[in-house]
């Protein structure tokens, strides 16, 4: 009896799946883009006759890796990314037959430094401050040394005399790259540490890598999870400084206070104008080979970048996305299915 039951269950499963073609769009990737994608996916399901797309998280790199696994129903259609796709990834894609990729920029996201509402007054940072606090090797008294700083006041008297404790995104997050390039590297250059390293006999590339290294003595903690994990760490540590997305901060203003970067307060306006330095574009990538095979794929992409959603007054902007000033161009790209390389 038991054997029969198992066999029949397997038979049903096999019959069911062979007759079943995927009718929903499958998305994976950046956890920064996930909130926006979920807003769009819900609205897409509510406003069209297509089923609601499935949006998974996992990070930009993981998403792009799955995206590049090949063409076919059992691979994802769209990869969300909080950074542009890399040459290496395009190559990996091509090796698996994913050649025609449509790149869609949906807008910009600001990265902010925030701390506990009732903690010390961390209200103004410069890239140099962050580098001095978190870099593996910093410039002290004209020499490049292993980071000796324990409190913020040690290198900048304007900052509170509080223990350094920073929670930064882990390496699998696209946010980390922006943090490195727009904060650490700039800070390294501004403090003169980079020049000192080059003078000390390092090549420029090596010096750049050394600048991006973060201290490993426990004062800087990599967070591999979501911003909620960072928030929980900040909640537990009054001296903690965390790296958040603008939208996440705006949703939790009652718990967090934000610091300015080089004197500019982060907001959708300052990010759109480019005054606030730490921002990055957000993307999603569409497999052209799946358009016309997976129902609703092109419609989803077009819906995402429509003025009603990604525009300055749309729900995405209301949630914290800085809308793309060149949205019309992006809409055209999607409508014409222009793949990477073609339009450039």
């Amino acid at each position, binding site marked *: 009896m038991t054997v029969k039951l198992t066999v029949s269950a397997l038979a049903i499963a096999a019959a069911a799946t062979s007759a079943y073609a995927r009718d929903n769009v499958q998305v994976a990737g950046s956890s920064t883009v996930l909130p926006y994608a979920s807003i769009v996916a819900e609205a897409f399901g*509510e406003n069209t006759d297509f089923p609601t797309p499935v949006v998974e998280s996992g990070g930009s790199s993981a998403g792009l890796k799955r995206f590049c696994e090949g063409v076919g129903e059992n691979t994802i259609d769209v990869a969300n990314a909080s950074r542009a796709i890399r040459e290496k990834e395009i190559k990996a894609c091509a090796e698996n037959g994913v050649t025609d990729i449509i790149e869609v920029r949906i807008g910009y996201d600001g990265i902010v430094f925030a701390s506990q509402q009732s903690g010390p007054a961390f209200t103004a940072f410069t890239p140099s401050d962050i580098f001095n606090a978190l870099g593996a090797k910093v410039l002290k008294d004209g020499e490049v040394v292993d980071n000796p700083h324990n409190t913020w006041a040690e290198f900048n008297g304007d900052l509170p005399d509080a223990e350094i404790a920073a929670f930064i995104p882990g390496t699998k997050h696209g946010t980390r790259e922006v943090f490195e390039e727009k904060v650490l590297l700039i800070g390294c250059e501004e403090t003169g540490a980079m020049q000192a390293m080059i003078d000390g006999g390092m090549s420029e590339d090596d010096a750049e890598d050394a600048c991006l290294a973060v201290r490993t003595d426990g004062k800087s903690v990599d967070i591999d999870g979501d911003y909620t994990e960072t928030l929980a760490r900040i909640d537990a540590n009054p001296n903690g400084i965390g790296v958040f997305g603008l939208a996440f901060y705006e949703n939790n203003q009652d718990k967090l206070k934000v610091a300015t970067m080089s004197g500019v307060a982060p907001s959708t306006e300052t990010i759109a104008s480019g005054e606030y330095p730490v921002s990055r574009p957000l993307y999603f990538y569409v497999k052209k080979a799946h358009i016309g095979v997976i129902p609703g794929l092109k419609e989803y992409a077009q819906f995402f970048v429509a003025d009603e*959603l990604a525009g300055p007054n749309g729900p995405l902007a209301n949630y914290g996305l800085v809308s793309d000033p060149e949205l019309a161009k992006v809409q055209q790209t999607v409508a014409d299915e222009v793949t990477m390389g073609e339009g450039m």
Partner: protein
Amino acid sequence: MTDASMHETPRKSSIHTIDARTKQRNASESRFKAYGIAAIALGLFFLVVLFVSIVRSGLPAFTKTVVEVEFTLTQEQFEQAESQLMKTGAYQDLFIAGIQSQLDARNIDVQADPAALERLLGKIGGDIRAFYSENPGMVGEPHVFGLSASSRVDGYFNGRVTRETLVDSRFLQASDLDLVDALFEAGIIKSAFNWGFITGADSGVDNPGGAGIGVSVVGSFFMMLVVLVLSLPIGVAASIYLEEFAPKNRWTDLIEVNISNLAAVPSIVFGILGLAVFIQFMHLPQSAPLVGGLVLTLMTLPTIIISTRASLKSVPPSIRDAALGVGASKMQAVFHHVLPLAMPGILTGTIIGLAQALGETAPLLLIGMVGFVARGYPDGFVGGFVEPNSAMPAQIYTWAARADASFYDKAWGGIIVLLVFLLTMNIIAIILRRRFERRW
């Protein structure tokens, strides 16, 4: 040394006078009892703390703040809204205009500009559109809608948002709370039981009021069905063979060791296996409860095999011998006598395995069941297995990671629903066990 001292004090024992050694033994016995009671008390204490904190944090998820007004949609408005790309947005605007005209009609004197009302309301366009597409006849007829308020207004009523901690933002401003109070007085804003939470699907991150766990309960149910139908027969057949029929040699030893090892393998490993074998090799659909169930079956099998073998072993050999003695074949002895007696133990093992599988998130991460899966209820029985769906623990995990604090309440509420599901499963198992139980 010790020998010498023992000889020096000859024991004069009497059962009437308690000597020092007996006292010591009695004392250590009562000490041990006290430790035991303390351990149980500690366990109970943590259970109570856990239970109270779950219930306290989870209850807000079961109520929601609704804005209740009568609203009439004209045919013209209906057509105009349907012609747009963002139909739900159009309905939202129409509804806001509807509230304003209601305020005028009922002579409620409050400052209510559309922007403030927009901040007060949740994402309600979808609900309105769903209502009119289900009841096309209602266009032009007045209907009383009770639609969810925004998550911050909701938080204001359950104490998460207060006037002191509120920071003016585009989500809610301090002046809006006066409007909320006025509308509450007028009976337009009220608290209601959140049926949508129990029956609904997941919602976008900007729409906590619309989030529900019902669809993922169905996902978990279908997954458990797969696990039960596959792992119980396979597990029981494997253990009966290993325990009753298989020769004891190096091969069966090897198999035994491997089964024990499998039981200790971290669950995420099964997820990777599921991705590689079921999705990439066998081309089963992604995010489907069928695949989730298969992965969890692999995870549950060792647990079931081990507990089934233990309960088969615990059946007294005399019963087997008696059956064989009166001429039963080995198979008859097993199926007529041993298995029925082992059934309660097998059921216990199965239910422990299922409960473990029910709470598992990690293996589902890689097969696409964790994330935003809000397709709604599956289409029929087969759809339940193959249409994308989430599972309860995955849903809870997803909510806990969202920016809006309101989703945190939802996560706790989800845990309550998960516990209720688990309790139901256990009760069914206990009833079944009672019916199967035989004494000898």
